[in-house]
């Protein structure tokens, strides 16, 4: 267990309800805000695009963590739900002509509905059975987006128009990444804040009760079927937003972006970051998005000494991916979040050990 903040005595309910209590926490928040605001001015376009991908992944990972980490319902259907968000938002805005913000909103609601539908088996099933059921949902959605030609007007892929809302349009190449960064930063920030606060409400706490001991939860009056389905709906809504943003950001939608590998990648994010931790989902999204790029840079670095590494890049990448998952689960099942907690504890208690 992470150490509780000793020496903090609350004198009112409002102080106890605050998200951050100590000065150190406010300082960290301030530093992080400064960093996030400065980032687009110091990074070049390539790294800024990585940052944008991370911000989208943060939204998706937070969504998945609500379902898996907080409600204990494993889902291998993330890729499929991302696809629902992406396709519906692209089609609604470009073909049907809805204003983009409205199209994204409808896509989010639609994904929540589809997610809830595929969550129905979860009412009777737990653990591995649910994993298999969501695997099936992934396969079925993937089949639909590959085969239903109406979605892409027989092209196999969909081009999406440049994002514009309220008369503002994302600019060309030089400012493209930077403007997207601000849009995504606001949305990702809102998503994190919403999720963080969700678990301070009765609804969020009922999710955790279902995860920890479903029968006991039922005994104290939690409506289990409703909690489970709401968890699927809320989580899929986040995922739908991530999917819609993927579509508008990359400006092209095709089924390759929504395969089972994507579901697994997102699961890896929340495992590596820390199950049942919003901050963990953020760390995991950063780590897993940057990992392939880091491996690429590393293999370029050792190109002269170990040339086979560069030749086998895709294989090396997959091997590292698998190894990272295995090692985290064996060595630190609670992920990066727990490691960060331990570092903080070390400094808080120094020079004592505990």
């Amino acid at each position, binding site marked *: 267990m992470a150490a509780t903040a000793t020496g903090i005595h609350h004198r009112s309910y409002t102080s106890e309800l605050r998200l951050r209590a100590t000065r150190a926490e406010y300082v960290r928040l301030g530093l992080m805000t400064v960093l996030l605001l400065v980032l687009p001015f110091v990074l070049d376009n390539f790294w800024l695009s990585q940052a944008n991908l991370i911000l989208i992944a943060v939204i998706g990972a937070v969504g998945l963590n609500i379902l*898996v980490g907080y409600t*204990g319902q*494993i889902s291998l259907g993330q890729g499929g739900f991302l696809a629902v968000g992406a396709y519906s938002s692209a089609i609604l805005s470009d073909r049907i002509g809805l204003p983009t913000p409205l199209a994204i909103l409808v896509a989010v609601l639609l994904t929540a509905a589809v997610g809830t539908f595929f969550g*129905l*088996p979860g*009412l*009777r*099933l*737990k*653990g*591995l*059975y649910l*994993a*298999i*059921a969501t*695997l*099936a*949902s992934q*396969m*079925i959605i993937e*089949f639909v987006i*590959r*085969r239903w030609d109406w979605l892409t007007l027989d092209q196999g892929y969909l081009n999406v128009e440049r994002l514009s809302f309220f008369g503002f349009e994302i600019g060309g190449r030089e400012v493209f990444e930077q403007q997207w960064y601000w849009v995504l930063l606001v949305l990702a920030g809102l998503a994190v804040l919403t999720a963080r606060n969700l678990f301070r409400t009765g609804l969020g706490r009922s999710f955790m009760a279902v995860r920890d001991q*479903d*029968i006991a939860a*039922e005994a104290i009056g939690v409506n*289990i*079927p409703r909690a*489970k389905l709401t968890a699927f709906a809320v989580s899929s809504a986040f995922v739908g937003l991530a999917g819609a943003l993927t579509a508008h950001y990359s400006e092209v939608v095709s089924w390759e972006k929504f395969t*089972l590998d994507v579901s*697994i990648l997102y*699961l*890896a994010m929340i*495992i590596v970051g820390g*199950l049942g931790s919003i901050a963990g989902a953020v760390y995991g999204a950063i780590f897993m998005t940057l990992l392939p790029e880091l491996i690429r840079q590393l293999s370029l670095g050792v190109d002269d000494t170990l040339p086979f590494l560069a030749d*086998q890049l*895709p*294989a*090396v*990448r*997959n*091997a590292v*991916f*698998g*190894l*990272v*998952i*295995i090692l985290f*689960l*064996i060595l630190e*099942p609670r992920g990066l979040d727990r490691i960060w907690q331990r570092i903080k504890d070390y400094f808080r208690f120094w020079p004592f050990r505990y």
Partner: protein
Amino acid sequence: MSTFINQLAYGLADGSILALAALGFVLIYKATGVINFAQGEFLLVGAYMFYTAFVVMDLPLVVAVLFGVVVATLIGVLVERLILRPMVGENPISIIMVTIGLSSLLKALVQAFYGTSPRSQPNLLPRGSVDILGASVPINRLAAIVIAAIVLTAFTVFFRKSRHGIAMRAVADDQQAAMTMGISVRRIFALAWALAAVSALIAGVLVGDISAVDNNIAAFGLLVFPVVILGGLDSVPGTIIGGLTIGLLKQFTAGYLDPGLATVIPYIVLVLILLVRPYGIFGETRIERV
């Protein structure tokens, strides 16, 4: 009619290989309670191990088979020892995830050593075809059915009659009680993984012989789920029924309706079974309800 016989033979051949793959999966689940998402990669590794021994090292067939069995056993035991044992007591999500990580690792290793292009190996099963009721059925498919049937029977007899088989069933039934009776649960876990790897090896070699030795072999891994859900997650006879049913269903859908639909039909069936009868045809009805 002749098309029907043909479809039947192809479906049964696919189905019996699927049953072999699912057998390993059920063994692991029954004995250790682990859902192994890396089962398809076990087929892949098995097929490549055999290919290495038979083609690259040019060993005689029998030695190559033995080599494959030894390596498969070793891999099974190592996986159990290094990856699954530290995970004992973790929640199902973590255990599922660790096998997913394993599948990614195994696939990457095979890719690093052998690349992605398909390898051909000299035919093991007889080629040519026989005439059955006006349909020409390839002999290698029939041979695959026969081999799978022999292996599955051997495994079933092993469970029913042999000391180790009975010990495995005891562990699956009640670990604590089995321990009290002096059965080494650790050894049984290792045995389950080893046997699963061996049955996957046989399935992998059969697929490799019928089509080609390449990365697609791993695709069988996910099809295992419809099979075991249909047959029952903890039932050995269930894998046979489930495997054959899914094999035939896929083949008939591909032959009579739409080849694209055939790839997804097992999963549609899977969802339906989960909704109606989650424990499958032969599975134990021990699912916790909420």
